[in-house]
Every structure is written in structure tokens, then in C-alpha cells.
């Protein structure tokens, strides 16, 4: 055995060597090598074959990992002595868990601890929590965001993430392990991805009798790019813990349903409450569990176990969810939560009917049923309609409508549609995020149809709805990934289990199977017949297993590639290649934020588009007007209006909001696509939604309907503050008349825009960030335009001076 494992390991090691040029990676493999022979001996025989198949994957995969990651991962796994019970089965899974966080870590090792956009706020809130304690955090009013308004942060966030990392930090301190809270935050997501792998293992093991399916699911969960995108170290986002909670809640639900136990139902409710505290996506659970229950009822599968588990979950879970201030009364007031309540009531009726049915003869029961159930149904329907129309129950929220009608958000709520994560998913994204799994996913669902016990119905329901929602919104790919991993693992393990059986079936076996089949095929659906099929030829086995192994290898390679290329680079630091192939790091964001931190007053207000609000608050520590928590659409529209109007209009707005600096992101020099000119139309649309008379989207397009920035651009475009700030002084970089915007491939007009109410304060190395200072009022009472003109020596403008000054003065 041991020799076999060693040979295999050697083969795989040589396979993986091209992808691991660094010598240190061989050393990194060492701890995993130690574990392998031990696990090898411990595994049961059947599992060991599967381990052989998956060992190659694992080794390939750990071949290129950084040295510290595996030790961190081992630490993560050691935290869970509870799973030692499963040790013989879990050992490979442990290593997978070890492997799961190892992918994401290149992110931090290469760029130190830089965090992408959203996490900045979470990080800031966590620091506040750790510094001021839980009660202050709960009542936190933040006056450094949304400048004149402030934000009741404690009541408008999901505190689960911050409280989790705060608790971990305190626990480590209690063990006298001094850790910076920042490190806890950075490593939280990979640690929880290990937990997610374990949860996926448990969930899958509830579905099938093959242990290998759970192991494969854990592996897939660990490396599927759709989930890695959110479990990268430094991705300190709500989703980091929410996916673990999602999968684990589902596991507990299946467990509760199978056993009909109140206790498991209560655990399910507690984790559901934790999920509600962590992520707005909890509504997915709130809708999926009732749906599962409903489908079971429709299939005639109502059982007392369903009653016990569902009602326990709902009664406790709803109360738990209402403890979160941000959720509050929503569970009894909004329509998203009504299906759960409806099924709850429906189950009460069913339980009562069930009891009555067992008490009286069936003929009497039928009349009873018709009168009773029909009456109740009509009554409750009427109550629901009345309550909704009377406004007691709020109608579905906008974000929810956009799930059904993809065009809805674009028309009604531009702020939702403007977030790229809320766009419909493009087809290639499925393949990019799930690769092999997207092919075996339907197979897994089909296998679930073959078994069709209560828990398989859950997987089917989850698969259908998860697929639909993932198609509607890019972001919800995340909720689809777990079920794809589970179904894919079921499919692959079934294939491997069929083809890895060593013995060929004998003649008697086959005859017995055929006889059984004939007996069984007389009744029941065709799909419920399971003919016993043996694989005879050795070659077919080798071919099939070999093909599967190659597919899995390609899958691992794809995941590795996606992780290192697409998801590892933090959006704050951009990486590019020089012509000679060497890597060039573009670090303009941090440069600019550092400049702000060191050169501006502590309370200087920064105006920028809301995408950068959290970063400015977190990295530059300056108050902002709007940020990524888009709770006040009007305020965002105000900023949009200031950006998209003429200087004469924008200046009073900026004065009113006490803006000191304006920050824009400009990618024209570098060809960076995520800049403000590309987002500009959203600013215009959002501003137009509030001030349709003053801002018009049409005015930014040329008569031929083109969105241009060059000489052909419309007057509105050329005079807008955003355009001026982006291209101010840009001409000076080029020989006269040859200024080119490399992002939009547009030749700019010879004379660049001029600014009179703002002055350039800072421009980063690659011109990605440009910061402008808002000028104070003129000393001699002139308006800014004439003051600029005077300095340029154009005295002709004198005549317009007086009229202008009245317009521009702000009271």
C-alpha cells in the first residue's frame, strides 16, 4: 500500500512541477506528504481507490502552494476536534481543507495586506467594534460618512462578520496569542472556506451512501472559482462567512428533516439567525426551505417529521432573525418572508387534518377536508390580499423585482442596476466559475431524481432555483456554487464507484439481477427501475477512470489558473506586464489615499463617486459624501448632479456640502477600464432620476447617439465637471494636438478643458487618481470664471463680472 502511494505521489509530484517553479514549493509539500501515507493506511479499501484518484489532484494542487498556507490551514483544521470522530473518513477531507485556503493566499503574499473595496468598511467597523466594545458598536452613529447626514451604522449593517472576527480576536487574546485585528480580518475568509468544505462534506454525506461523494464535494467546494472569488484572503466580505453558514444551515435542515428532531431544528434556526446577522442573502434560505417543504407536501410526502422540523425552524428562526436591528420587523412585514409564514400556517392545518384523518373514517374525512381546508384557504388568501393592498405587508422590494424581471432595475432603480454584480450573468461566466462541474451538475441532479427521498428533493429544488437566480444576477452565482459542488460530487463519485469496482460480475450475479429486474419492472415508473449493470472489460474501466482523472486534473488546473489570474489581485493594486514580461505593479490608489491622509485636514470632506467611498473612509480616513452603502439615493444623485453639471451649477452644490476635495478616477492614460468616465452615464442617470429638468442623459450623447469624449463630444459633456476634471491638463503630456485617451481610443481636442472653481491638487503616478481642491470664494468678490480669466490676462471679460458674481455667491 505504502509503496503504491509513494509511487503515485512521485508521479504526481513530477506532474505538478511545471506549475511550481519556486523551489520552496517542494518544501511546502512536505507536511502534506507526511499526512498521506498515514491517511492511506487508515482509509478503507474502497476509499483508498478513490483517494488514489483524488490524491493526484491534491498533490498537484499543493505543489504550487506557498509555504505558510498549509500550516495555517492545518491550524484551521485542528480547531475542530469534533470531527475526529470522522477521522478515518475525514483525513483526506482535512487535507482538502488544508488545500482550500492555500489557493487564495498568493493574494496577500504578493501584495501585503491590501483589501478590495467593500471590505474596507467592514474592516473599519471591526476596528471600531474592537476598540469601543459591543454596545457602542451596536449604537454606532458614524458622522464621517454621508457627510452632512451621517449614518446610523450600528442599525444599518449586518454585524455577523464583525462580531465573528471580534470574537476570534478576543479568544486569541484570551489564549495570550497577540494578534493584530487586521490579520484576523484578512485570514477570516480562507479559514471559513475550510469550514465550508467541511459543511459541504457533511451535506453531501446526507445525500448518498458513498463516502467519496462527500470528499469530492469538499474538494470542489474548496477550489471552485465561483466560491474562491469570495474566499480569497483579504476578501473580508459578508459572503466570506455567509456561504459557510448557508451550506451548514442546509445541512442542519436536512438533518432535522431526516430525524424529525426538535433539537436539530433549533440548531438550524440558530445558524439561520447567524446567517441573517451576516448577509442580506439570507432571504435565499427563507424562501428555499418553505419551497422544499411545499414541494414535499405537493408530492404527498407530508410527514410528522416535516412538521416538527419545519415549525421548530420557523418559530425559532424568525425570532432569531428579528433580533438583528437591520432586519427588525421585516420578517412579519415584507412579502419575501411571507412564503415561510404561509407554509408554517399550512403545516399547522395539515397536522390537524392528519390527526383528524387518523381519528375518523375516510368518507367522513373527505367532507370534512373539503369544507375545512377550502374555507381556510379562501380566508387566508383574502387576508393576504387585503393586508397587502392595505399596506400592512410591504410589497416586494425593488431588488427582488429585479430578480424576476431583469429589465426592471434599469428602468426603475438605476442605483441597483449600476452595480456590476447585479447584472445578468453572461453564459461564459458559468463555465469560467464552475468549469467541469457545470457539465456534471445535471447528472448529479438526475441521480437525485433516481433516489428521490426527501433530501434529494431538496437538492433538486435548490438546483432549479439556484440556477435561475444565478442566471439573473452575477452575484448569486455564489449561492449556486454549493449545490453544483454537491451534485457534481454525487455524479463523479457514482461514476468512479461503478468503474473502480475490481471484480467483474459473474454469470449468476447477472442472472439474479435480471430476474430481479423483471420482477421489479412490472410496477412503478421506468425511471425507478435500476438495472444492475456490471462493467466487464478492464479496458473500459481504465478508459473511464482515466478520462475522469484527466477531467479532474484539468478542472484543478483551471481553478488554479482562474484563482491566480482573476481573483487574486486586489482591485486596489493593479498588476500589469511590461513589454519584457516582467511584472509591473500599479499602485495609484494607495498613493493617492496616502497623499490624502498626509496632506489634508483631518476633517476635509472628499467628494467622489460612491464606489470609492469605503476606500477613502478606510484607507485615507477622511469623511466622504457618499459611499458603497447606498442607503440614500437622493444624496448619491446630488453627487451625480454635481459631477454631471456645469461648474456654475456644481460649485454651489459643493459649497453647500462643505466639500474640500473632489476625487476622480481617470484611466485615459493607462487604458484602465474601471474609471469614472465609463461610469459617468450611471451618474447622469441617477441624477436624472431626481432632477429630470436639470440633467438629461440625452444631452451627453451626440446627435448620432454616440457617447464620445473627443472633439465631437456634446457641449454638455465638455462642460460637465467630470469631463473637465478627467482631462484637465491632459494635453500637456502629449505633443500639441496628439493627446489620445487610450481607454476610449479617442483623439482629444487640441485645447483642453479649463477649470475655474477647482484647482488641481494631486495626480497620481499613472494619472489614475486625480484630486482637485475646491477653491474658496474670491477675495475681492469676483466670480471664479472672471477671476481665472483675469489671471490669464483676458480683460475683456470684465463686463460680465458683476452679473456673474451674483449667480455664484453662496449664502
Amino acid at each position, binding site marked *: 500500500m505504502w509503496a503504491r502511494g509513494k509511487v503515485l505521489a512521485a508521479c504526481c509530484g513530477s506532474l505538478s512541477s511545471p506549475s511550481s517553479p519556486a523551489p520552496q514549493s517542494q518544501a511546502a509539500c512536505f507536511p502534506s506528504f507526511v499526512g498521506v501515507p498515514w491517511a492511506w493506511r487508515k482509509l478503507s479499501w474502497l476509499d483508498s481507490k478513490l483517494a488514489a484518484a483524488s490524491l493526484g489532484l491534491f498533490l498537484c494542487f499543493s505543489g504550487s502552494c506557498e509555504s505558510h498556507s498549509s500550516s495555517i490551514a492545518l491550524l484551521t483544521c485542528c480547531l475542530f476536534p469534533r470531527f475526529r470522530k470522522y477521522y478515518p473518513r475525514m483525513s483526506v477531507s482535512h487535507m482538502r481543507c488544508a488545500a482550500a485556503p492555500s489557493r487564495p493566499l498568493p493574494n496577500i503574499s504578493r501584495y501585503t495586506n491590501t483589501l478590495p473595496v467593500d471590505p474596507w468598511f467592514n474592516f473599519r467597523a471591526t476596528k471600531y467594534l474592537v476598540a469601543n466594545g459591543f454596545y457602542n458598536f451596536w449604537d454606532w452613529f458614524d458622522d464621517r460618512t454621508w457627510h452632512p447626514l451621517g449614518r446610523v451604522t450600528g442599525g444599518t449593517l449586518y454585524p455577523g462578520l464583525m462580531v465573528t472576527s471580534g470574537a476570534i480576536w478576543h479568544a486569541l487574546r484570551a489564549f495570550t496569542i497577540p494578534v493584530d485585528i487586521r490579520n484576523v480580518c484578512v485570514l477570516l475568509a480562507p479559514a471559513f472556506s475550510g469550514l465550508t468544505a467541511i459543511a459541504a462534506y457533511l451535506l453531501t454525506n446526507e445525500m448518498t*451512501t458513498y463516502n467519496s461523494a462527500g470528499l469530492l464535494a469538499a474538494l470542489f467546494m474548496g477550489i471552485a472559482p465561483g466560491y474562491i472569488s469570495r474566499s480569497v484572503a483579504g476578501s473580508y466580505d459578508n459572503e466570506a462567512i455567509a456561504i459557510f453558514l448557508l451550506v451548514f444551515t442546509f445541512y442542519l435542515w436536512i438533518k432535522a428533516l*431526516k*430525524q*424529525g*428532531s*426538535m*433539537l436539530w*431544528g*433549533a440548531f438550524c*434556526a*440558530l445558524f439561520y439567525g447567524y446567517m441573517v446577522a451576516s448577509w442580506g442573502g439570507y432571504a435565499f434560505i427563507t424562501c428555499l426551505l418553505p419551497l422544499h417543504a411545499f414541494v414535499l407536501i405537493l408530492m404527498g410526502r407530508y*410527514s*410528522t*417529521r416535516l*412538521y*416538527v422540523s419545519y*415549525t*421548530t425552524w*420557523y*418559530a*425559532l428562526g*424568525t*425570532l*432569531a432573525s*428579528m*433580533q438583528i436591528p437591520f432586519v427588525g*420587523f421585516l420578517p*412579519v412585514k415584507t412579502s419575501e418572508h411571507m412564503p415561510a409564514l404561509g407554509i408554517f400556517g399550512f403545516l*399547522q392545518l395539515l*397536522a390537524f387534518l392528519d390527526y*383528524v*384523518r*387518523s*381519528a*375518523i*373514517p*375516510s*368518507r*367522513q*374525512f*373527505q*367532507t*370534512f377536508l*373539503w*369544507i375545512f381546508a377550502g374555507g381556510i384557504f379562501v380566508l387566508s388568501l383574502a387576508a393576504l390580499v387585503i393586508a397587502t393592498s392595505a399596506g400592512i405587508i410591504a410589497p416586494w422590494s425593488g431588488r427582488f423585482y429585479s430578480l424576476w424581471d431583469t429589465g426592471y432595475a434599469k428602468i426603475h432603480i438605476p442605483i441597483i442596476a449600476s452595480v456590476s454584480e447585479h447584472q445578468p450573468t453572461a453564459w461564459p461566466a458559468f463555465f469560467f466559475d464552475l468549469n467541469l462541474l457545470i457539465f456534471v451538475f445535471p447528472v448529479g441532479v438526475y441521480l437525485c431524481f433516481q*433516489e*428521490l*427521498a426527501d433530501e434529494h428533493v431538496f437538492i433538486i429544488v435548490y438546483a432549479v432555483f439556484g440556477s435561475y437566480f444565478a442566471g439573473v444576477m452575477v452575484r448569486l452565482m455564489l449561492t449556486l456554487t454549493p449545490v453544483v459542488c454537491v451534485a457534481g460530487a454525487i455524479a463523479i463519485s457514482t461514476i468512479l464507484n461503478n468503474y473502480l469496482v475490481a471484480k467483474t460480475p459473474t454469470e449468476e450475479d447477472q442472472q439474479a439481477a435480471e430476474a430481479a429486474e423483471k420482477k*421489479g419492472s412490472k*410496477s*412503478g*415508473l421506468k425511471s*425507478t427501475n*435500476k438495472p444492475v449493470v456490471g462493467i466487464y472489460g478492464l479496458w473500459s474501466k481504465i478508459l473511464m477512470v482515466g478520462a475522469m482523472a484527466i477531467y479532474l486534473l484539468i478542472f484543478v488546473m483551471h481553478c488554479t489558473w482562474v484563482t491566480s489570474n482573476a481573483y487574486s489581485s486586489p482591485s486596489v493594486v493593479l498588476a500589469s506586464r511590461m513589454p519584457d514580461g516582467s511584472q509591473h505593479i500599479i499602485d495609484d490608489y494607495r498613493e493617492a489615499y496616502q497623499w490624502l491622509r498626509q496632506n489634508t485636514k483631518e476633517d476635509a470632506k472628499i467628494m467622489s463617486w460612491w464606489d470609492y467611498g469605503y476606500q477613502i473612509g478606510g484607507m485615507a480616513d477622511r469623511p466622504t459624501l457618499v459611499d458603497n452603502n447606498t442607503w440614500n439615493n437622493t444624496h448619491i444623485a446630488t453627487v451625480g448632479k454635481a459631477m454631471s453639471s456645469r461648474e456654475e451649477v456644481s460649485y454651489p452644490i459643493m459649497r453647500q456640502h462643505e466639500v474640500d476635495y473632489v476625487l476622480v478616477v481617470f484611466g485615459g492614460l493607462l487604458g484602465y477600464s474601471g474609471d469614472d468616465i465609463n461610469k459617468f452615464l450611471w451618474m447622469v442617470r441617477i441624477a436624472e432620476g431626481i432632477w429630470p429638468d436639470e440633467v438629461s442623459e440625452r444631452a451627453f450623447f451626440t446627435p448620432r447617439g454616440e457617447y464620445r469624449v473627443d472633439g465631437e463630444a456634446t457641449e454638455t459633456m465638455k462642460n460637465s465637471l467630470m469631463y473637465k476634471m478627467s482631462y484637465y491638463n491632459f494635453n500637456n503630456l502629449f505633443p500639441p494636438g496628439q493627446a489620445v485617451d487610450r481607454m476610449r481610443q479617442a483623439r482629444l481636442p487640441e485645447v483642453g478643458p479649463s477649470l475655474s472653481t477647482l484647482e488641481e491638487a494631486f495626480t497620481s503616478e499613472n494619472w489614475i487618481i486625480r484630486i482637485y481642491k475646491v477653491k474658496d470664494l474670491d477675495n475681492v468678490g469676483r466670480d471664479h470664471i472672471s477671476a481665472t480669466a483675469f489671471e490669464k490676462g483676458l480683460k475683456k471679460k470684465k463686463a460680465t463680472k458683476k452679473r456673474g458674481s451674483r449667480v455664484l455667491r453662496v449664502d
Partner: protein
Amino acid sequence: MAQKRNNANRGVSPNPKTATTTSSSTTTAPLPPTPNPAAPIPGSSRPTSSHSATTTSAKTSASAPVAQTWDKVVSNLTTHYQKSTPQRTKLLDAFMAFLVVVGVLQFVYCVLAGNYPFNAFLSGFSATVGQFVLTASLRIQTTEANKKDFPAVSPERAFADYVVCSLILHFFCVNFIN
């Protein structure tokens, strides 16, 4: 039906035996609680008399016989309940009835006097509802007839679960009541 369900449940850990036995027990459920011949006889005699007539038109023209059957349904139900329910279960039922009364009272108060401390109303109401369903679950789990549905839950375990869940429930309620 039983055959089909049996097929569907093949290969699932709560073994097919339970499925068959539950389905068979539901079909034959009226038989076990028939130590007294008084209860089932009116029920079974009535269908035999009107069997041919009502099978086709029971649903449509059921208005006249409904009143009679309704009486019989109710009387059957009460006799069955009184005869075949253990004393302990009756105690649980009394508690559930009490909870229903309390819940209805709260709801009526909320409708009449307004829901101003909405926190308080919600936590009070959901405490009664939650306690009701937990008690119902306990009742289901401790009933002899349902034993086969819960192979993992003994009556003692059920009661321990009940206590734990009630503690969690009331912790949330107290926390929410403001």
C-alpha cells in the same frame, strides 16, 4: 400507492420499512382505535347506505348531507379523542388550548388597541405561537402511533429537546421584548 412510495424510498437510510408501515398504518388507521364498536359503526354504516349515490355527486351536491355528516364527524372526533388519548397527552392538549386562548387574546388586543409597542406584541405573540408548535411537536413525538416516524427520538429525548428549544425561544423573546 404504498408500492410506489416503497420504490421511491429505496436506498435511503430511514429504511423503506418505515415508509410501508406508515402508509399502511394511515390506511388502516381507523381500525386500531376501535375497541368501542359505537364509534366506527355510524361512520361505516353511512357510507354503505349512500355509497353508490354520493361517490359521483358528493362534491357537487353535498349541501344537504353535509349538515348530518358534520354532526357525525364532530361526534366521532370527540369520542375518539376521549377514548384513545392518554392522560399525559390530554395535559399537553390543555396547555396547547391555553396557548391558543392567550394568543387569540393578544391578537384581539392588538387589533382593538393598536400595536404600539410592536416589539412587545411580536415577542408575546410569537412566544405563544412558538410554544404551541413546540408543544405540538412534543405531542407528536410522544404519541405511540408516530413511533415509527422517529426512530432516533425517544420520549425522554423528545422532552429534553422540548426544554432546550423552549429555553432558546424564551431567550429570544425576552431579548426582543424591549
